[in-house]
């Protein structure tokens, strides 16, 4: 943790007060504080509001529409009306459904981050999990629900782990950068999915040849719904699996030797190696665990509410990439990722499906999510950038003074 404290330690005592903010920002950011993520989100929403205003809409009305669309206004029901015939309750259940996925794809980015790896392959690992879960869900029709669901989830998590493990293995053995290899693996997963579900593909169903798609998951592999109409995409028990994954993430990182080693490699791989940690092995393990989270996300989606996936869906699916923003905003911690996933879940659902189209044109609003997502990633990157600029300015100043004196 020593290098974490360096920015504040470097601050000379004669620093003028105006610099305080930037330095404190740096301390807060490195300490995993709340200030920066909250500030980041607020700034992103403000900027989003300006764009909404520029399109001639009232930003407050739009955000209110998104808030309602996400079902957050449900908490104002006194007594709480849990009947999902009510639109607010339905919207909230759908937001939570999206949150489930986002928690897991967020963890898939957060875990390798702690090991100093940037996993951009969440989308590919998610798709692999989705495909495997679909195959298990379509097959074994005679199985009872519990083993069938568990098999689907387990197989998908394993497949995701293997998929991400390839990138970890390449990094460990050849030094191939994980950013490049995970992006490549995304494309292999996308094209592989298109082949498997596509025209004449091995997993294509036989009853709808007009729009090539996968088979439908049989009833016994459906994760039971506990809130809402099971026929109309109610909320299933998958969300508890996602919450359990948050706990597992925290436990692995903070209460196991593996987690200690992963964090040590994340802080400084050379130092970790000097300390006797097998760095290469940690790379493979971190990526595999990350892939298991993403694969699990795919399984919960497939067995929870999708049940079927078309070729066009393989191309259109983007949710794995949103995991990057979730992890960054959540500061790669368990609690942070959970909260960020809920925020993005609400935003994603509230700007698209849930949004009352008469409040704000949904084709515009859908882009608002992408924009806020982009801004958050930008700002999270930018606070590091601001610090960098600030530090280099301090280094430059004495040189300038010397130059001025010479002239």
């Amino acid at each position: 943790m020593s290098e974490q404290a360096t920015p504040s330690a470097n601050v000379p005592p004669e620093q003028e007060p105006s610099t305080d903010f930037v330095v404190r920002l740096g301390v807060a950011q490195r300490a995993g504080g709340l200030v920066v993520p909250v500030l980041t989100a607020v700034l992103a929403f403000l900027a989003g509001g300006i764009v909404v205003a520029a399109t001639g809409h009232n930003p407050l009305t739009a955000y209110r529409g998104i808030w309602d669309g996400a079902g957050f206004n449900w908490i104002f029901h006194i007594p709480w009306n849990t009947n999902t015939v009510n639109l607010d309750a339905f919207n909230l259940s759908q937001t939570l459904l999206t949150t489930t996925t986002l928690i897991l794809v967020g963890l898939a980015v957060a875990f390798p981050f702690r090991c100093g790896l940037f996993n951009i392959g969440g989308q590919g690992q998610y798709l692999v999990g989705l495909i495997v879960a679909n195959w298990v869900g379509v097959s074994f029709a005679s199985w009872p629900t519990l083993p069938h669901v568990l098999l689907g989830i387990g197989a998908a998590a394993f497949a995701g782990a293997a998929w991400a493990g390839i990138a970890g293995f390449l990094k460990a053995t050849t030094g191939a950068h994980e950013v490049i290899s995970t992006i490549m693996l995304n494309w292999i997963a996308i094209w592989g999915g298109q082949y498997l579900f596509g025209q004449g593909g091995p997993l294509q169903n036989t009853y709808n040849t007009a729009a090539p798609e996968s088979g439908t998951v049989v009833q016994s592999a459906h994760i039971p719904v506990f809130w809402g109409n099971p026929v109309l995409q109610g909320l299933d028990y998958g969300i508890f699996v996602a919450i359990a994954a948050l706990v597992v993430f925290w436990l692995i990182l903070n209460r196991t030797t593996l987690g200690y080693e992963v964090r040590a490699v994340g802080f400084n791989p050379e130092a970790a190696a000097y300390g006797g940690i097998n760095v290469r092995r940690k790379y493979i393990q971190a990526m595999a665990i990350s892939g298991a989270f993403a694969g699990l996300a795919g399984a919960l989606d497939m067995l929870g509410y999708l049940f079927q996936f078309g070729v066009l869906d393989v191309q259109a699916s983007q949710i794995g990439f949103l995991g990057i923003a979730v992890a960054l905003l959540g500061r790669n911690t368990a609690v942070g990722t959970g909260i960020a996933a809920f925020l993005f879940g609400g935003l994603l659902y509230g700007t698209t499906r849930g949004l009352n189209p008469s409040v704000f044109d949904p084709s515009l609003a859908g882009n608002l999510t992408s924009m806020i997502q982009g801004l958050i990633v930008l700002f999270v990157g930018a606070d590091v950038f601001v610090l960098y600029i600030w530090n280099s300015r301090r280094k430059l100043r004495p040189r300038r003074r010397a130059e001025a004196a010479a002239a």
Partner: protein
Amino acid sequence: MKKSLLVAAAVALLAGLVLAGSGTAAPAKAHATFTAALVSDIGKFNDKGFNEGQLAGLKRAGKQLGIKTLEIQSNSSSDYLPNLTTMVREGANIVSAAGYLLAPTLSTVASQFPNVDFTITDDSVKGADFAKAKSVKNIEGLVYASNQSGCLVGYLAGEMAKAKGGKQVIGAVGGIEIPAVDDYIVGYNYCAKLADPGVKVLVGYSQDFVAQDKCKTVAQDQIGQGSQVEFQVAGGCGIGALNAAAGAGIWGIGVDVDQYSLAKNVLTSALKRIDVGIFTADKQAKSGQFKGGSDLLFDMKNNGVGVGKISPKVPKGFITKMNQLKAKLISGKVKVPVAKGSDLLGLLPGAHVGPTH
């Protein structure tokens, strides 16, 4: 100290919630105004074609019928169900699903909301897509006689090939060999031979509706065999066929919407007027004439299908002859065949199965 601050904050938050809550306490939606809704497929509303056309129909219904309209975009297939149900919960009286991709979801949703009317564009409620549905009594299919628009463009293609002389060959590039695609091609083939009995019609399938390069390959293969005109029936993939035609200096023909400006050398386009379907269904539903469980036919007679912009290089005489044929289609003197298994069988008067080439 810290604890008391927390408590104070919590109290303030709760107070805020209660205050805000009082403002939103009336979620009940008024059903006083008639509301029509449209749910896009994953092509989205800015697709310059299928979805955008239907949205135009909905907007027109809103203006001309004085009804409230709602539209919602699907970004993935997991959006279909929440989108359809959200439209119902927002108080829509009629909800239109933009295309057969929504068919399985629509049959689920429609059975849960028996008091709401639903339509599906370019699909028959009696077809395979609804074979597994428990009931379709509140769903209306909007079916287009695409064989008739295929006929008119085929007639022009035949005339152009005949005028050019030499080897009499024209081609069609389909996405997948399904009735929705083959209806166009059967009409194209039939009427090309009305114009030019000696013409040979080549038919190929790209097995894709998206990847342009696949359609380009199929088209280039046909051009290599002497094709003078290439008719694309493969959605976005078919743009590749139009480009191949433009590259070889021969004619291309667009499909579904007016694709005149999408490539050079576009002769014309075979149109489905999907906006007309939405408008008509909304109008029906408003006046209580909605007929669930049946299909609504859109053909040449009610202007539901037609041809797009025709290249100014086409001789006036050809267009006159084509319009004469159009009149015969409307009067029923000429009966264009349809594809095997077509939704149009039993719906379009005199529909009978014909070959694609």
